[in-house]
């Protein structure tokens, strides 16, 4: 496949090249395959709303491919990766995956990043009985219950509720026990799920919801929201948000003096390096979900090597320089697929799926076993608290103690500072 790298080409040359590529793409099918590689295909958000995560995810998957090929490939065959940009647009997914399957003749597919981009892949996978690894989708399989779908996001068997369980458990454990809670989330797919799960947990843990509202993602100013929440004076504030609104909420809370006893929960974006370095000390005390932190309890085999390689490549690629959030999971998703191909000694979709379903895998994000609906058998959504952050230097986030793991118990690396205001000093 020809790739155009330079952006300096005049537009017409590009158009000509597109036409040429169309012809080549057609001819490419007929070209005999050298060395007969195993092909893995995927669409990934390289442009559009989710590209800030999609690009690092693809980089991680490429690292896996290089790692595997260095060790001689899978079943003695090299691995080849074919990826297309889904533009963060679900409408492109059916086209991309049929192209992958029918024109590129890939042996396996992996999902794109995010619930919205996984969803349109499900019926295609089911019609063709594919084994499919999902990269960070929330509750994609609840309606389909497709047995050969597996999700690398560690949400666990009940994704909506498991998401925030840790946050609520930590809150309930404090003495005196907080009573009131405010729920706020964006009008978008993930936050709606997270808030729905949180509502269940509010009941389960016996809190009283005193505020439960949502806002459009294009909101500019979050101070009115923070102030409205402050007016009802809740003990807990649970926020389910995407990066720009996470930043908005954190800043607004600081500005209007919103000081609940526990603050955070489901904010996407605080995990990103650019966001962490710009918010700096404003993060202190926030308890938020996460997937990985450079704490001693999280040092699984192979992860250091992975980050060394990733961070090297990230410099050139212009993506998240640390890559602690999504990349190791994207890597693990294909790692599991590779292990299952080796383990089952087969390229048969069903055999590989059966193998994944019945085995535990040791990956760079730890031991993974799948359960109901292809989710992790046991939830491992972390709750971390930002502690002792000074200034906005990026290096401080590489060492332990800044993002302390509070939950779950077996990965705990420190204690919660309670209430929120105490951690801000």
């Amino acid at each position, binding site marked *: *496949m*020809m*790739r*155009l790298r330079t*952006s300096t080409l005049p*537009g*017409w040359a*590009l*158009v000509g090249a*597109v036409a040429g*590529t*169309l012809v080549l*793409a057609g001819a490419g099918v007929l070209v005999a395959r050298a060395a007969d590689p195993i092909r893995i295909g995927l669409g990934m958000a*390289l*442009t559009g*709303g989710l590209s800030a995560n999609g690009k690092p995810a693809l980089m991680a998957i490429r690292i896996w491919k290089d790692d595997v090929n260095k060790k001689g490939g899978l079943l003695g065959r090299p691995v080849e990766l074919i*990826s*297309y*940009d889904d*533009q963060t*647009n*679900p*409408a*492109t*997914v*059916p*086209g*991309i995956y*049929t*192209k992958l*399957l*029918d*024109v590129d003749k890939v042996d396996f597919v992996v999902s794109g990043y995010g*619930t*919205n981009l996984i*969803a*349109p892949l*499900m*019926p295609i996978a089911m*019609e063709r009985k594919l084994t499919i690894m999902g990269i960070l989708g929330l509750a994609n399989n609840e*309606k*389909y219950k497709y047995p050969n779908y597996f999700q690398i996001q560690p949400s666990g068997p009940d994704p909506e509720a498991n998401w925030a369980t840790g946050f609520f458990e930590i809150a309930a454990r404090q003495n005196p026990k907080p009573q009131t809670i405010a729920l706020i989330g*964006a*009008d*978008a*797919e993930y*936050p*709606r*799920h997270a808030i729905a799960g949180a509502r269940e947990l509010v009941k389960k843990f016996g809190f009283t919801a005193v505020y439960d509202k*949502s806002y*459009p993602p294009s909101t500019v100013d979050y101070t009115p929201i923070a102030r409205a929440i402050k007016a009802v004076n809740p003990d807990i504030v649970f926020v389910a948000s995407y990066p720009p609104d996470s930043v908005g909420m954190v800043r607004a809370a600081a500005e209007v003096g919103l000081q609940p006893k526990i603050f955070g929960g489901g904010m996407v974006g605080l995990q990103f390096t650019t966001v962490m370095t710009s918010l700096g000390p404003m993060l202190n005390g926030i308890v938020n979900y996460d997937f990985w932190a450079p704490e001693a309890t999280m040092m699984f085999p192979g992860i250091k090597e992975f980050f060394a390689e990733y961070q090297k490549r990230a410099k050139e690629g212009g993506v998240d320089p640390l890559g602690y959030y999504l990349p190791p999971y994207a890597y693990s998703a294909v790692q599991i697929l590779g292990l299952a191909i080796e383990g089952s000694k087969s390229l048969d979709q069903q055999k590989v799926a059966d193998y994944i379903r019945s085995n535990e895998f040791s990956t760079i994000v730890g031991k993974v076993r799948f359960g109901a609906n292809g989710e992790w058998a046991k939830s491992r959504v972390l709750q971390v608290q930002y502690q002792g952050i000074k200034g906005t230097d990026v290096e401080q986030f590489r060492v332990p103690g800044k993002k302390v793991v509070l939950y779950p118990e077996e990965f705990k690396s420190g204690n919660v500072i309670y209430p929120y205001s105490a951690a801000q000093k």
Partner: protein
Amino acid sequence: MKTRGALAVGVAVIGLGLALAGLGVNPYVYFAGYVVLQYVVIATAWNVLGGYAGYVNFGTPAFFALGAYTSIFLIEALRAPLPVLILSGGLVAALLGLGIGYLTLRLKGVFFSIATFALSVVLQTLIINWEYVGGAKGYTLIRPPVPFFRSWGVLLFTLMVALAVVTVLVARTIERSWIGRGLAALRDDEDAAECMGVPTLRLKLFATTLSGFFLGVAGAPFPYYVTYVEPSSAFDLNYAVNALAMPMIGGTTTWLGPVIGAVLLGTAQQVATVTISSELNLLIVGVVLVLFVVLAPEGLTGLVRKLRRR
């Protein structure tokens, strides 16, 4: 080309589509073809209002999404079959079209465009907060086993071929009728047209309603195509841009313009998605748009006409 001849060509295209569907070529062709044909419908429908009557609708996503969400509502409420969905999606969008038609009483030019844009935002907010059709979480459609055809891809492709042919035939018929001539007159000068006996309001209402109808029709099968619909992708700005850009590239004054524009730009985008597959994709759209409007202001059909005249 006489009307009967056009009809024959239309039937032939549908037949060709059916043959292609039966042929069992690479399934990717059906999926990519569906998207391109969907744009043929969208561009042609948009052009009935934008090209013929000169009212630039920025709210294309609203109509498209309304078609899609009408389908979702009817699937959820009644398990309604596909033909019903397409007709209903079209009719509901046509009602919205009628509504914006009355806007033209007071709003002309860019004001009209901005009002349609605002309408799109308001409608999107409504859908986001309407849990029954999935709200912000989105709606997952589990497709039933495919009737009559080999796969859903083939069925939807064939359907879109038929819808595209019907839309283009209707647009062509209108263009060459007294309605089309009246629309052209009011596009050139609304006051003069009214004073020359053209019932401008009625024609505008007709154009907005019909344009809305076919935009809704284009959106109605969308849930079956993606199987997962959420507001931000159903109301994607790309629909507004493509609906505008495709007729511009092809030429806005004839039915052929939007068809050529949709096929060219739609295919280029499909090809770019699976070849270049990066930001350059968007860059191409941008550069092509700029070059076209600067170098070939009347679109490809206009360019050909000009060359022929020489």
